[in-house]
């Protein structure tokens, strides 16, 4: 079995991670590395634990009452669940984009500037520069540069999702977690997001949960397959989709489940 994978350049190192909701174990124990400036995709059927795993990478699970966890998660060499570690700081270094785009009912500019404002930055040229850079990184600048003061809610679904990515990028995180970022988008908007993920991996470590296996195959460098709370297999995407080593993976990706 190829678990855990030890990547050459781990950005996030997970060891023996288990997550419980009340008495029920939802995940683990899972051990795997997510290499720096690479895209790691998490796949598996509903309820397999992939979203739970993703959320535990930036301490989102502890917001759920009754949630308990064991094991360690390290960002570089720092344990993110270590004593005295502020979850807010963790989430600044590890940003997240959700399935449903959730722009604030504010202007396009203010949506991106929001994270900067709450971390104490005041309006000025530095802020404008950061907003522009984030919008450019999210491949949205050309489409919105003349209407930055208009409401974000007037944008298309695909644009709104890229705005959320820009908002996550504005605070300059090191890791970007994406929970099915394109599942509510049409094929063209999806293609934009996928292209964007590819570009983002030049500068960021990306971890993406997706129900769409072709999407995992298209965008990721590494793919991890979860099933019933266990990590079954993790490997280079090219290997996993042509010659998986576990029969459970084979059954799932070829559509022989259930």
């Amino acid at each position, binding site marked *: 079995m190829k678990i855990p994978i030890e990547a050459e350049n781990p950005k996030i190192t997970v060891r023996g991670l288990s997550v419980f909701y009340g008495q029920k174990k939802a995940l683990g124990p899972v051990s795997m590395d997510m290499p720096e400036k690479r895209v790691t995709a998490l796949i598996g059927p509903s309820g397999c634990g992939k979203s739970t795993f993703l959320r535990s990478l930036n301490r989102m699970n502890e917001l759920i009452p009754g949630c308990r966890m064991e094991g360690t998660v390290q960002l570089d060499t720092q344990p993110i669940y270590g004593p005295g570690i502020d979850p807010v700081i963790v989430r600044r270094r590890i940003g997240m984009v959700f399935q449903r785009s959730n722009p604030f009912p504010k202007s396009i500019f203010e949506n991106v500037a929001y994270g900067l404002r709450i971390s104490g930055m005041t309006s000025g040229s530095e802020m404008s520069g950061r907003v522009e850079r984030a919008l450019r990184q999210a491949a949205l600048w050309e489409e919105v540069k003349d209407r930055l003061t208009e409401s974000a809610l007037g944008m298309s679904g695909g644009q709104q999702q890229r705005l959320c990515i820009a908002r996550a990028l504005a605070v300059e995180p090191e890791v970007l977690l994406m929970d099915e970022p394109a599942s509510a988008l049409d094929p063209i908007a999806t293609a934009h997001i996928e292209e964007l993920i590819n570009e983002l991996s030049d500068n960021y470590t990306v971890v993406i949960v997706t129900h769409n*296996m*072709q999407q995992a*195959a298209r965008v990721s460098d590494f793919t991890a397959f979860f099933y019933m709370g266990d990590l079954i297999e993790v490997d280079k995407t090219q290997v996993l*989709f*042509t*010659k*998986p080593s576990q*029969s459970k*993976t*084979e*059954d799932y*990706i*070829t*559509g*022989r*489940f*259930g």
Partner: protein
Amino acid sequence: MGREHTNREYEQELRRLREQILLMGAKVEESIINSIRALTERDTTLAERTIAFDRQINQMEVDIDGLCMQVLARRQPVASDLRFITMALKLVTDLERIGDLGVNICERVGELNQEPPLKPYVDLPVMAEETQRMLHDALDAFVAGDAEAAHRVIERDVTIDAYYTQIFRELLTYMMEDVRNIYRATRLQSIAKYLERVGDHATNLAEMVVFMVKGKDIRHAGKLGNAGT
């Protein structure tokens, strides 16, 4: 491909594809068997029938290619399914070529049958039988998904090559003996060469079976240098 697909239509498509390949394999084998019989029994009618039969094989190649394209476009196969489809696309080319070689043998038989026999055939029928059995076993390995059996087929190709060299040498002596033998001897030499090629195609089929089952490419073993990695 042990378990069945959740999507039954997809399962049907894959099953149909498999059946079509097996049917094409059976037809190709029949073509080779008949071309050899036409040779040993000097049966020109059978040779002509076998040549006409090749159209069916060609049609199957086109049909199977179409099926593969359809599955690729609609199902985006992965893992063992992907290996099966990509191999199917290549496999039919080898099968079709074997069918063509059967035709070539029959064409030479037609020419030979216009002349008195050069000599009693000794090695050629043995080589032909060995080649035909190799093809048969390669197809069996495909049906069974048996990589071990496929490996055994591959090992037998050296025997076929050795037969060819031996037959070629013997025919050379006939040609040196009397220039009037050359016309018939070169026809027989061509037939031996066609059979040797059938052995090569059977080897390709067996290599594809290994890839399909194990996901391991064993072609050109140890002779690719660093170019492919």
